[in-house]
């Protein structure tokens, strides 16, 4: 038997109806044409399939179809937003604003911008992980071209007030990019109403395929982008490369499904999270990371006093698949920079586990998890000498 999967924030399996839609685009009988081929039915069919998927994603996120630019994932969408906007508007100024708790797919492009001569202000969220709109306002200068603040944090699940931040940015004439890779299916997403100028999405966080994402670019706001990948001019010249029909179809189907299901799934996820949280809190010496009032119930990030992070992971790994902080960071067993940014000491940051729940999580799995984690923590505390005088 495979371990209980509680790492949905790292990635999700592809949902059955999504897989079925993807299959229709592969193989000799499928919609296998190149969407860029304008001279025959195979191409026409692929192109209209791509456009249907674009409309699905647009509808699910509250955007217009022509605001969607397909990318290879949220990492590329973030890079396109950050480099595309800063390059296009470099003459306005060379300053951008972001926060210390963004995903690496924002922070690393920012570091590159610094190497290219930009000034980047890194806001420090409060202890709960929230970046207040007034913090953004205070950081804006006439030279500020772009602000990038994520929607749902991938480590602690905290939800930022992006609409509030959008108002502040609009007032000052700075563009706002929001990394919403973790949002779909967890919180309401409404691109048009949010007032955000650019928003990144990824399919594989919400039961779609890996390797496809989208950048939403507001037409209303009229934000312009410099292309970053050049070629045959797909995506109106903003992002070249043959469109992968089955991939965008998968994203379209996954987003439509999420839009239909998420509200209905929420109470169940909340119950499961509460069950997990209560079960583990009973251990004592367990601290929750992130503002619980402003978080999605799909994520629960806990620090366990008296245990070391890697050992905790190793102890639970045969039965429970979780991670410390960002999925993609776990190859690198350093204490989470996100928790460090929230003022957690190294030990608390290091001894944290991120439990992320999803569509296929069951109550039985939660119970197994509680029991396995409890055992592991008690075992490690015993080895560490907890409660033994002199230890």
């Amino acid at each position, binding site marked *: 038997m495979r371990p209980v999967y509680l790492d949905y924030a790292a990635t999700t399996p592809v949902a059955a109806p999504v897989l079925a839609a993807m299959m229709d685009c592969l193989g000799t009988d499928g919609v296998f044409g190149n969407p860029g081929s304008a001279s025959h039915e195979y191409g026409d069919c692929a192109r209209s399939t791509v456009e249907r998927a674009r409309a699905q994603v647009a509808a699910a996120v509250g955007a217009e179809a022509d605001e969607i630019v397909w990318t290879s994932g949220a990492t590329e969408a973030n890079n396109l937003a950050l480099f595309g906007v800063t390059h296009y508007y470099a003459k306005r100024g060379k300053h951008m604003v972001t926060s210390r708790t963004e995903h690496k797919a924002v922070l690393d492009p920012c570091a590159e911008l610094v190497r290219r001569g930009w000034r980047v202000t890194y806001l420090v969220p409060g202890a709960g992980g929230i970046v207040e709109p007034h913090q953004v306002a205070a950081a804006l200068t006439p030279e500020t071209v772009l602000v990038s603040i994520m929607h749902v944090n991938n480590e602690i699940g905290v939800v930022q007030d992006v609409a509030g931040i959008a108002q502040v940015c609009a007032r000052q004439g700075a563009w706002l990019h929001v990394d919403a890779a973790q949002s779909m299916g967890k919180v309401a997403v409404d691109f048009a109403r949010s007032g955000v100028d650019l928003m990144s999405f990824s399919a594989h966080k919400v039961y779609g395929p890996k390797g496809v994402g989208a950048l939403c670019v507001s037409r209303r706001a009229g934000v312009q982008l410099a292309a970053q990948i050049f070629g045959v001019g797909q995506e109106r010249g903003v992002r070249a490369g043959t469109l992968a029909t089955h991939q965008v179809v998968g994203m379209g189907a996954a987003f439509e499904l999420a839009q239909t299901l998420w509200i209905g799934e929420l109470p169940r996820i909340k119950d499961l999270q509460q069950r997990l949280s209560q079960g583990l809190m009973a251990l004592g010496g367990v601290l929750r990371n992130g503002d619980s009032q402003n978080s999605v119930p799909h994520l629960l990030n806990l620090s366990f006093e008296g*245990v*070391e992070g*890697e050992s905790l*992971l190793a102890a639970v790994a045969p039965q429970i698949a979780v991670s410390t902080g960002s999925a993609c960071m776990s190859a690198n067993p350093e204490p989470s920079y996100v928790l460090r940014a929230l003022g957690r000491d190294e030990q608390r940051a290091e001894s944290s586990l991120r439990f992320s729940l999803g569509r296929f999580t069951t109550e039985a799995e939660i119970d197994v998890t509680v029991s396995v984690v409890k055992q592991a923590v008690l075992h490690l505390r015993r*080895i*560490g*000498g907890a409660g033994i005088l002199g230890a």
Partner: protein
Amino acid sequence: MNYNSLTRQYFELAPQVGVLEGSDTYRGAAGSRAHGTWVQFDLAVQQEEACAVVREARFLAYGCPYVIAAAAWIAKKAPGVQAGGALPASVLALQQRFEAPVEKLGRLLAVEDAWNDAMKMWRGSMRSRP
């Protein structure tokens, strides 16, 4: 998370975890929890004909699975080892035996340091004997 079976076994079973009491017991520790690795050995030393040897050992550890496994393994191997001597296996040998990545070498040093610290205690007690 690819620990070899020796690491898995000693990490999971943690034989010899605990503390020892008694006048023939010497305690040594190294590292700090704040820095992520801390190891403590309690070594019970018994005088044999010509020399003193470790009779029994216990350990406590806070750290990664390699540190825990190595400390447990050392505590298991300790009985019979001559008091005052070096760790029953070098840090490099431990790293190889447990197939720890090289970046763990620093952490494994705490195992050696804790052992040496306990032995220093024993030597100290020898000197202060009548």
